[in-house]
């Protein structure tokens, strides 16, 4: 998929995500709009192999609460029918508010924060032990970087030289209570991650070209795990949702949805 096709796909994912959340009357709107471009590039450019192949690349979403965007992508990739998106959060629906393996295409059940990276470490190590060319990817939320388990895993990944592992941080700088720097300051983040033995690149997490370019360079350094700090905007693409913690799990009204969809459809960037 070329860059302009990827951009179109991002726009469609944003629209479908908002519609899905509106229908369910629940969801993590801001975080979904924040990770959509990363998911888009992962699923339409990066991840290799079919589901049946043991050697397929693995994507395990640690930022579980942004699952609505992932369901939209999985529907687009044919893992689930698009119609099923309307069942999100409904009684006995398999589309629940955090990733579940009941949904085809989902590698692990996640949702407890600080769990994805340790699992990815084991998966990446398992791939190496089996001499598979599998690469393992995760998307982390910035709020969950306060979880100690992430830093245990960071230490482990460099110690075991997991250069088939790539973590992407959705760094939108906002969490449910407010700014990261007010809740629990992460900075100087790049230096922290580098000091744990990872190779770091920083990109604009909404620039699909920049994301493609970064992923194409993996591993950044042989023998080291790779970390992409993706600078993002919570609520990206909808003016009144951007940079606003209200939209962490805010659900649009009918009128807000109408305005948001109009903005997205008219966006030519």
């Amino acid at each position, binding site marked *: 998929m070329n860059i302009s096709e990827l951009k179109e796909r991002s726009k469609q994912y944003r629209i479908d995500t908002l519609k899905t959340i509106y229908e369910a009357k629940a969801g993590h709107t801001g975080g979904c709009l924040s990770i959509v471009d990363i998911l888009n590039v992962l699923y339409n450019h990066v991840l290799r192999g079919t589901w049946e192949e043991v050697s397929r690349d693995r994507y395990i979403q640690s930022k579980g609460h942004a699952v609505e965007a992932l369901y939209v992508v999985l529907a687009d990739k044919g893992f689930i029918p698009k119609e099923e998106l309307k069942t999100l959060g409904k009684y006995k629906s398999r589309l629940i508010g955090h990733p579940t393996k009941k949904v085809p295409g989902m590698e692990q059940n996640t949702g407890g924060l600080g769990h994805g990276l*340790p699992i990815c470490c084991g998966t990446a190590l398992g791939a190496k032990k089996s001499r598979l060319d599998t690469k393992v990817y995760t998307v982390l939320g910035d709020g969950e970087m306060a979880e100690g388990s992430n830093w245990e*895993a960071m230490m482990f990944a460099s110690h075991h030289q997991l250069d088939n592992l790539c973590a992407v941080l959705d760094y939108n700088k906002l969490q449910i209570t407010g700014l990261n720097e007010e809740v629990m300051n992460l900075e100087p983040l790049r230096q922290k991650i580098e000091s744990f033995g990872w190779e770091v690149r920083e990109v604009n997490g909404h620039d699909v070209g920049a994301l493609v370019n970064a992923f194409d360079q993996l591993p950044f350094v042989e023998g080291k795990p790779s970390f992409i700090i993706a600078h993002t905007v919570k609520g990206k693409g909808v003016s009144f949702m951007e940079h606003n913690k209200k939209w962490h799990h805010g659900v649009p009204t009918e009128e807000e949805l109408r305005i948001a969809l109009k903005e997205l459809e008219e966006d030519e960037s």
Partner: protein
Amino acid sequence: MKANQVVFAETIEQIAAQDKDLYMVTSDSRGSGKLVNFGEIYPDQIVEIGIAEQNLVGVASGLASMNKKVFAVSPACFLTARSLEQVKNDVCYSNNKVVLVGISAGVSYGALGSTHHSLHDFAALRAINNISIVAPADAFETEHAVKAAIKSKQPVYLRFGKKNMPNLGQELSSDFKIGKARIIKKGSDVQIVATGETVWPSLEAANLLEQVGISAEVISMHTIKPLDTSVLNWEVPIITVEEHSVYGGLGEAVGSFLLQNNHCVPFKIMGIPDEETVSGSQNEIFEHYQLSPIGIANEVKKLLR
């Protein structure tokens, strides 16, 4: 006589000789897990995590998802508390077939104090869906439990102690299956249902009782979940014995079954009471809480009065 965790390590070494997909994941715990030798013979099949139990269980889950047969080995006190959320989510809920091995369980680390005791693990894990909980009594049960855990279709928690144990009751029960209790000694006046390292003192108690004309049956309920209720005899008084809090473990599992099925028999749960545990060796702690042969025999006599 050998400690169950020694038998565990020996069994694993034998299996690893034939199975290159077998992995031990340790949290700076290969010494207490008796896996130093394993690490020397199979350096590619041991994964060191360092002292980081949450990561231990997460990494083990990821490895298991890549079709490895994974044992996550760490002191029971940390494995089932510090990393309980990883056990719940990454192992059980995600159904990654990890075998969790809680070493030096119960009050094996007696004198080290409550930080190092695991008197909560049965209770914590019983409330989590999709895991078998197994506390072998002796070398025979340990060896078979390890082999059965590898073949299990769901995650398994194996609980081992440090004390040297004799083999018990093989003349009566020569087979082992997760979820199937073993009769260690037959009896008709009372049933002593024990698990793990309390089976031996329970058998000794039954031998003492025999001398005074009381016929006690001794059951090794090595699997706490799923509980084998078919072995229970509610025609006679029942006493349960465990190296665990009296809350939430074997006793309450048995009691719950009996009550909910209208089997109202004289019943007693023996274990560690809800208090700050007394300090001392495992033996001293057992004696303090009447988990010794004499202590158990005395409780049986009280129950029969």
